[in-house]
């Protein structure tokens, strides 16, 4: 078994949001199969720089699957061929020698390309800003144990709260819909008594913000769940649909 492989990379290059992009074809030689996908890109970028060319910009930070910064569509799948992980946790041993690997940015109107593989996910922040919080000021909170919460609810809240906000759901969705992201936050907070108090206003405001950002709608195709690195369930979407209906019918 050889420990290195050669790959043909198709890397998306785009100078800015309004510029036309294209694929750069790059022959990556002697890539260690123990390297992570991003380390492979590091090596490629270093080689590009040594040749006096500009490196390919891509977002990354923690490189352990939790910050949600890395955002690559690899061979047509957000975060690549391995399930339940982010691109930074993907290792080169998942690729075959001689394979062609297509590397594209998240593609969605609401996530304009900043440069190359870097996109602007500010839309997510604006959705949270519209209601993804509990309206509580610092100080004067009651004792944390004053309000018992059934373990089941706490666990369900945690399942939803595990979202890392990477946007793979949008990238994966055929409609570029942000439903899974928004639903995860709505569910997380409404599972807990602290958040349930304002669940009506929250869901109305967050859905409004989501629609304004230009995401698509949900056809219940399930790509989001299948590609989510944290395997967040589409049952959260149903929950949001339910809450939105209730909130709409009862709001004045």
């Amino acid at each position: 078994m050889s420990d290195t492989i050669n790959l043909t990379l198709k890397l998306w290059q785009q100078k800015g949001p309004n510029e036309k992009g294209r694929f750069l074809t790059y022959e990556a030689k002697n890539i260690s199969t123990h390297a992570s996908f991003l380390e492979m890109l590091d090596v490629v970028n270093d080689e590009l720089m040594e040749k006096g060319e500009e490196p390919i910009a891509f977002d990354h930070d923690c490189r352990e699957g939790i910050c949600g910064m890395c955002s690559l569509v690899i061979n047509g799948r957000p975060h690549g061929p391995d399930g339940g992980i982010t691109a930074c946790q993907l290792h080169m041993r998942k690729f075959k020698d001689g394979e062609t690997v297509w590397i594209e940015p998240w593609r969605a109107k609401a996530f304009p390309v900043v440069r190359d593989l870097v996109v602007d996910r500010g839309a997510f922040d604006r959705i949270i800003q519209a209601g993804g919080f509990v309206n509580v000021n610092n100080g004067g909170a009651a004792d944390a144990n004053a309000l018992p919460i059934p373990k089941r609810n706490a666990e369900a809240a945690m399942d939803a709260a595990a979202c890392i906000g990477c946007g793979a759901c949008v990238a994966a969705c055929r409609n570029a819909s942000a439903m899974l992201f928004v639903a995860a936050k709505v569910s997380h907070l409404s599972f807990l008594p602290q958040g349930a108090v304002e669940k009506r206003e929250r869901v109305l405001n967050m859905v409004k913000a989501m629609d304004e950002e230009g995401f698509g709608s949900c056809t219940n195709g399930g790509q989001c769940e299948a590609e989510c690195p944290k395997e967040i369930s589409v049952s959260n979407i149903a929950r949001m649909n339910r809450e939105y209906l209730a909130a709409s019918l009862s709001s004045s």
Partner: protein
Amino acid sequence: MLKSSLGKKYVMSITGQLVCAFLVMHLAGNLALFAGKETFNKYAAMLEANKVLLYAAEAGLISIFLLHILTAIRLSLGNRAARPEKYAVYKASGEKRMASGTMIFSGLVILTFLVVHICQFKFTPRVGDTPTIYDVVQSYFAQPQWVIFYVSCIWVLSTHLFHGFQSSFQSFGLNHPRYTPMIKAGGALYAVSMCVGYTAIPIFMYLGKGG
């Protein structure tokens, strides 16, 4: 509420479910074809007897369809606009990717089918060789090209139903670890029954004639 993306989905879901229910009634009625010419014509006459009721039902159906179709088109246009630049390679895996990804296309096929279907069975004049509705049906289903057309359209319709039936529950927020698998199974069963039921008609009519 109806302006929001979720609101539109409620519309899709309700109208879709109503049409699903209609499909069942329509099939049940049409099974009368198997009982022979007389029964079927009697059934048709009964439907046409009360003009007020008939027009009311037709108007209702048309508006439901229109709502479903117009909303579908708006949603689909919005969805396309949400990704102006397509992927060079797209392999995101959802569980029912085929059916869910082609709703608008299957929908448009259904729409074309509906137009043809209505022209054929509602507006073909019942004179000459085809004095009754039964004769009209029989005359079309005697022709292999129409049998193939009907059968294929119903196949497409079934894929629409296969995804649509269970999806409309999710759109309304009905998702539960215990019941969702049942709903999904129910949706598949529904799609298959509609498929079998509706394709049976042209095929049997055709064979019936031949045999």
